[in-house]
């Protein structure tokens, strides 16, 4: 993949405007990308990053503005046109075909063929070569894609971009589904690509990643470019955050109040699920936040979903205030006062086409009904009161949930359980895909709920988040709780060691409970 050095920027976007019904998603965006650089695109949710890369990928046609590609003005009328020019995009929601093999996905759209017959062997070889280059020779090209983990699918998505000999690869939050080790692997691949003259547009919420891999940064806010071509390594974090939010945010965790009482609210004993996790026991007291730290695939999401009754345990019990819950029944858990903010907000929590207030009142609607009868707006005021209190923006409770940004959608899910009056909250990756501003609001909300006596279980891949928010941390590895300690006794390095198995002998025994 050798590319003649292009004089001037490889890509220049000028004054890009994209209007949707009711929203001006892009309102004059500029972006310069030179060959061989990693250009980071920063911005809060709703700042226009996704729209901008869709314009670049030919999925949206801009209403105004100019795109100069390799020195020539172009218009990408279709994804195929962008593809042919050498722009590949790895979307956050992977656009792969689960039913096809890994190799078929890699070559999808440009299958090697002879006389109309596809050459499977050639496709396999190509996929194998690319996967090896990506540091994943263990992924078999003939494996059905849907059977790979999310991280594995991400690698295939990368291979597919490479297969097209792209000169510019756009990566939309590629690290969101990756473990720390795999992120390092991703960075190695990115460095190889840029050394070959390929340009990478990298989108991430994690500023530390941008420091590590990025060359230059462009910041978007409200559909406009507010700063461009900042040096990625040396621009102070505070400046970047100020640019993104338009205000100064201390990226700090709220102080912990002392636990409200010693009352054990949630008690999990010997919970197991064949093939997923074994013998998990823990308790959460009123006013306490318990963090579950672990890698993707360690079983942490499975554990909270089983506690919640969404999966049926093969052994063990869950008690709320001493009362044993019927295993495998979500309605029983909700009746007992539990609420889950699941990992995948859009597919697991929200009715995207329904108005915000109906999303909020979904479990609690019986309360607003008389003998099953429920007026169309009977629950509007109560739901709007809570979304207002959580500062869900835009504030109109009749807007479809689809139109909200990730952070505000998460607030809608939390509002749902506040309205329901939950006393046990299970939060699975509550800040994934949530921008910096909304993040601190969610942190503050979690602590406030705890201070009001809620028992909270927090699952997160981000160790600082677990340490900063939780009172007590359980480390989960390969389906077992390998360590339990007050968060004050742990630091990030120690947790990462525990999470990734580099544990000194003896420390792996968990303190009994």
């Amino acid at each position, binding site marked *: 993949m050798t590319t003649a050095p292009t004089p001037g920027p490889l890509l220049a976007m000028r004054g890009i405007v994209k209007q*949707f*019904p009711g929203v001006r998603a892009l309102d004059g965006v500029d972006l310069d990308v030179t060959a061989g650089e990693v250009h980071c695109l920063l911005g809060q949710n709703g700042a226009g990053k996704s729209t901008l890369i869709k314009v670049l990928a030919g999925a949206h046609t801009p*209403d*105004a503005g100019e795109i100069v590609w390799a020195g020539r003005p172009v218009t990408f009328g279709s994804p195929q046109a962008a593809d042919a020019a050498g722009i590949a995009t790895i979307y956050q929601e992977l656009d792969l075909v689960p039913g096809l093999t890994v190799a078929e996905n890699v070559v999808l759209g440009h299958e090697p063929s002879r006389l109309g017959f596809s050459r499977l062997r050639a496709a396999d070889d190509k996929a194998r070569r690319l996967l090896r280059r990506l540091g994943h020779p263990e992924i078999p090209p003939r494996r059905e894609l849907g059977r790979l983990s999310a991280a594995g699918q991400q690698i295939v998505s990368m291979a597919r971009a490479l297969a097209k000999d792209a000169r510019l690869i756009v990566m939309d939050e590629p690290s969101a589904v990756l473990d720390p080790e795999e992120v390092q692997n991703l960075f190695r691949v990115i460095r190889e690509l840029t050394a070959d003259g390929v340009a990478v547009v990298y989108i991430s919420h994690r500023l530390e990643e941008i420091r590590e891999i990025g060359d230059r940064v462009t910041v978007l806010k409200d559909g406009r470019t507010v700063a461009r071509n900042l040096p990625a390594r040396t621009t102070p974090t505070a400046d970047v955050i100020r640019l993104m939010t338009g205000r100064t945010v201390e990226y700090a965790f709220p102080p912990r109040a002392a636990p409200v009482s010693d009352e054990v609210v949630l008690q999990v004993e010997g919970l197991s699920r064949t093939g997923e996790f074994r013998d998990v026991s823990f308790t959460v007291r009123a006013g306490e936040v318990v963090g579950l730290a672990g890698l993707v695939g360690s079983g942490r999401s499975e554990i909270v979903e089983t506690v919640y009754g969404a999966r049926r345990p093969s052994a063990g019990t869950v008690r709320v205030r001493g009362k044993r819950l019927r295993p495998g029944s979500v309605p029983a858990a909700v009746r007992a006062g539990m609420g889950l903010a699941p990992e995948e907000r859009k597919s697991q*929590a929200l009715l995207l*086409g*329904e108005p915000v207030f109906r999303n909020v009142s979904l479990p609690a609607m019986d309360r607003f*009904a008389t003998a099953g009868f429920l007026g*169309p707006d009977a629950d509007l005021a109560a739901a709007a009161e809570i979304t207002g209190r959580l500062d869900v923006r835009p504030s109109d409770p009749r807007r479809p949930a689809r139109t909200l940004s990730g952070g505000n959608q998460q607030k809608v899910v939390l509002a749902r359980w506040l309205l329901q009056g939950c006393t046990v909250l299970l939060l699975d990756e509550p800040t994934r895909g949530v921008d910096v501003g909304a993040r601190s609001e969610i942190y503050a909300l979690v602590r406030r709920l705890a201070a009001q006596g809620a028992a909270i279980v927090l699952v997160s891949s981000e160790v600082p988040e677990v340490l900063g928010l939780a009172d007590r941390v359980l480390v989960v590895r390969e389906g077992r709780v390998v360590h339990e300690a007050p968060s004050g006794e742990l630091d990030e390095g120690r947790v990462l060691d525990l999470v990734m198995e580099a544990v000194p002998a003896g420390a792996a025994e968990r303190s009994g409970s």
Partner: protein
Amino acid sequence: MERAAREEPARSRLARLFDTGGGRNLGLVAVLVLLGVVGVVTTDTFLTTANLLTVLTQASIIGVLTVGMTFVIIGGGIDLSVGKVMALASVWCTTVATQSFGWVVMIFCALAVGVGAGLVNGLLITYGRIVPFIATLAMLISAQGLAEQISGRRSQIVTDPVIAGIANTRLAGIPLLVYIFAAVVVVGWVVLNRTTFGRRTFAIGGNPEAARLAGLDVRRHTILLYVVSGLCAGIAAIMIASLTTTGSSTHGTLYELDAIAAVIIGGTLLTGGRGTLIGSILGVLVFTTITNLFILNNLATEVQNIAKGALIVIAVLIQTRAQRSSGTG
């Protein structure tokens, strides 16, 4: 840029009009009016009370099935069995033995058969994890077989005067069947739009996983949706038994497709989560009016079916257009 700015709101207004149930319903009303104009121009008899009541009576049986079908489809399922469950119920409630107990037992039998078939459908789909298409297709076939078995493939004459009299009864000049249809529509509309049951139906059809994780009992609700559809088939069975004065295994052939088509042209998403009952009913009326016009003009049923097919395609095209322009991601 100025051009774009002018175009966008215009297109989006149009999209919004089609996007809301109300807008699409207006479209269907316009189609009905258009058909009415065609009727007036091409025939002398279309716009007579007698003919309009005939149209309504003919719409009433499929209409009742369509109400149940609307619930099932909004809830994310499909019920292919309604036509033949109706036939089975009509046969079961008109056997010599059942008729000997009188009309109350006959009605009870018809409703029980419908509810029972719906319950079996629901259990197969939820606890048996069989996709709705297959489960209700199996029910269609077995209901047909059972109806033939019970009736010995003969039409069973309705001798009970109350049941036979339903179709002949008129209140204020309007046939009782039309009142039954209207009552089912009103109850259905209230349940769908003014109860927690209706809200849950939309939620479960829109995102079953989210509904489950919000604590809704998705299985129980799904079973109830098929029971509602079965109940409608039971009601329709009494209506058709009365109208034809027979219970027969040949009743209701392909009615399920007419009901599904009416739901679809009424703007309900086949994938669930969105739709209106009024749209479905307008869909039934459009279909029945088309049939009526063809009969009045002595045109062949073949042409009529082609017209219906074209109408379905046009409705779905409009639906997907509206969706695409409203879904901006």
